[in-house]
């Protein structure tokens, strides 16, 4: 099925002539406006700085996957989700997000803080004793914005399905988003969840895969090849969309909105987000080496210099 056709069919643009159609579509998908995009791009840089500074300070944590998903998180919390930063665990009548690959907590914490869930200064406590910002996200210390603990891989999609089912029971028509690592898909529980969601038409669910092609021991292709993920999800009965430029804010926003427009149609939705691990810090890019390694002082400076101050460090 051709997704962009699908999209057009569902819009009033379907009846317009081709040239107009293209123009309108472009405009429609150019949302948010240029000024907003500028702001979001600055925010991405700030989030990168937050990631680098968090992991550097405690000499531990996972910068690679975090950097690769900075644009996604910024788009999610600023453009895509209808959410309430006045945190309430049950999250009725708002979109919810679940992070399955909990090790990329630095990007999650940065974006939550900068979305008003908790003071930005608290990023200073990342991975320290008695902190709410645990190595992997948890509800245990009451950090606003987190609804489930993660870290042990493979559990997030199931939890997201549960939340999606509860929304349906509550006649709450908001959406559940979740992010999952590509290596993480090697865990069988994901496939249980993937089979269940299709079989039970959990169509208020958008699962994004951080498709960076890397995991701890190397490229997924050398560790355990994932093969054709599009075919896999399709054969399990999912709607599949791809974001080739997973580090491009506009591309993310456009396709995620398309994904949203496909909710409620009887199928769960998977978005394959092609990201670059370590994106935005040249020496960290395209390698698994920085999956779970912190930069030293010099490397931090270099990374920060490549991402000069924008909105104010904590």
């Amino acid at each position: 099925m051709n997704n962009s056709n699908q999209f057009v069919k569902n819009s009033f643009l379907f009846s317009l002539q081709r040239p107009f159609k293209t123009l309108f579509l472009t405009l429609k998908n150019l949302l948010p406006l240029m000024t907003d995009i500028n702001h979001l791009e600055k925010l991405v840089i700030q989030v990168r700085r937050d990631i680098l500074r968090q992991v550097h300070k405690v000499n531990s944590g996972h910068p690679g996957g975090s950097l690769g998903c900075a644009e996604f998180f910024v788009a999610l919390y600023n453009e895509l989700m209808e959410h309430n930063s006045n945190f309430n665990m049950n999250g009725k009548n708002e979109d919810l997000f679940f992070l399955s690959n909990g090790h990329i907590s630095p990007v999650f914490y940065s974006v939550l803080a900068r979305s008003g869930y908790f003071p930005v200064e608290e990023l200073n406590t990342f991975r320290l004793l008695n902190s709410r910002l645990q190595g992997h996200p948890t509800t245990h210390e009451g950090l606003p914005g987190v609804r489930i603990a993660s870290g042990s891989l493979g559990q997030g999609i199931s939890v997201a399905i549960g939340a999606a089912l509860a929304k349906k029971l509550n006649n709450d028509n908001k959406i559940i988003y979740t992010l999952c690592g590509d290596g993480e898909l090697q865990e069988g529980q994901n496939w249980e969840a993937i089979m269940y969601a299709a079989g039970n038409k959990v169509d208020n669910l958008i699962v994004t895969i951080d498709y960076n092609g890397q995991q701890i021991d190397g490229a997924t292709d050398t560790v355990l090849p994932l093969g054709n993920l599009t075919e896999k999800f399709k054969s399990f009965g999912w709607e599949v969309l791809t974001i080739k430029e997973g580090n491009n804010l506009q591309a993310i926003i456009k396709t995620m909105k398309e994904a949203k427009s496909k909710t409620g149609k009887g199928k769960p939705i998977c978005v394959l987000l092609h990201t670059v691990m370590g994106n935005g810090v040249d020496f960290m890019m395209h390698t698994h080496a920085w999956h779970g390694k912190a930069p030293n002082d010099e490397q931090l400076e270099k990374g920060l210099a490549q991402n000069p101050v924008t909105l104010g460090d904590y």
Partner: protein
Amino acid sequence: MKKYTNTGNKDTRSGFGAGMTQLGKTNPNVVALCADLTGSLKMDEFQANHPERFFQIGIAEANMMGIAAGMTIGGKIPFTGTFANFSTGRVYDQIRQSIAYSGKNVKICASHAGVTLGEDGATHQILEDIGLMKMLPGMTVINTCDYNQTKAATLAIAEHKGPVYLRFGRPSVANFTPENQTFEIGKAVHLIEGTDVTIVATGHLVWEAIQAAETLFEQGISAEVINIHTIKPLDAEAILKSVTKTGCIVTAEEHNYLGGLGESVSRVLAENHPTPQAFVATQDTFGESGTPAQLMEKYGLNAAAIVQKTLDVLKRK
């Protein structure tokens, strides 16, 4: 000595089913999840009455635990149902992270615990689930003794906020506790007063302990029998009070002697009041096929075994 009457054999899992049926009517937030064992878990009535609140997960217990955790977000009270082995060992890490550590209000309801599931044999006869669940911070662990108590416990855990493991079984056994009793989580039930020995039992072993006490009574031995339906939090006070009086104790459970109620009691004693103890439990072996009665006998889990262990421990007083 106080006597107990069996009002007719019934399976504890049917008590769970009856509890679910009632909860379906009284608590709209209760949802039920099952992993392709609806009939075995006696969840069919709930399913029939409330199809919209019943979730057939298929043979995917890990996914079931995750879904249950997620449903609490939105205010649901999920009751998961499958065999005890697949409710615990199969999904330990999922329970650990998505339910216990995340503090989710999930009720893990487990049938066919122990050797008394009978003919299916060892792969299904978990004898470690009490130990598995008791080690999880924040988890409440309950093992009920008969139909009436299981029904009462099912109702009670819906009111309790936090994760609960409720363990029950397959065979028909004596139903002797009061109908429509109130179930108090964490509060031991004194069944028989005695002075020579304390017998604390849980699950199917409670009725056996009562039988044992009667036999012992005939032999001139006064046994105090306590039903420890809640293994965690453990009613240490009740146990200590009793052993202070009796000076020795027998623990009885359908579980490996490693890691279960018995060792928890040993710990309480060692920390507070060192006391001779004997263990009625399986002796670190897997089970096997057979009828429930045959297996209880072979693995030393019946009244006769309790009597024997009591005589042993009395010698060590």
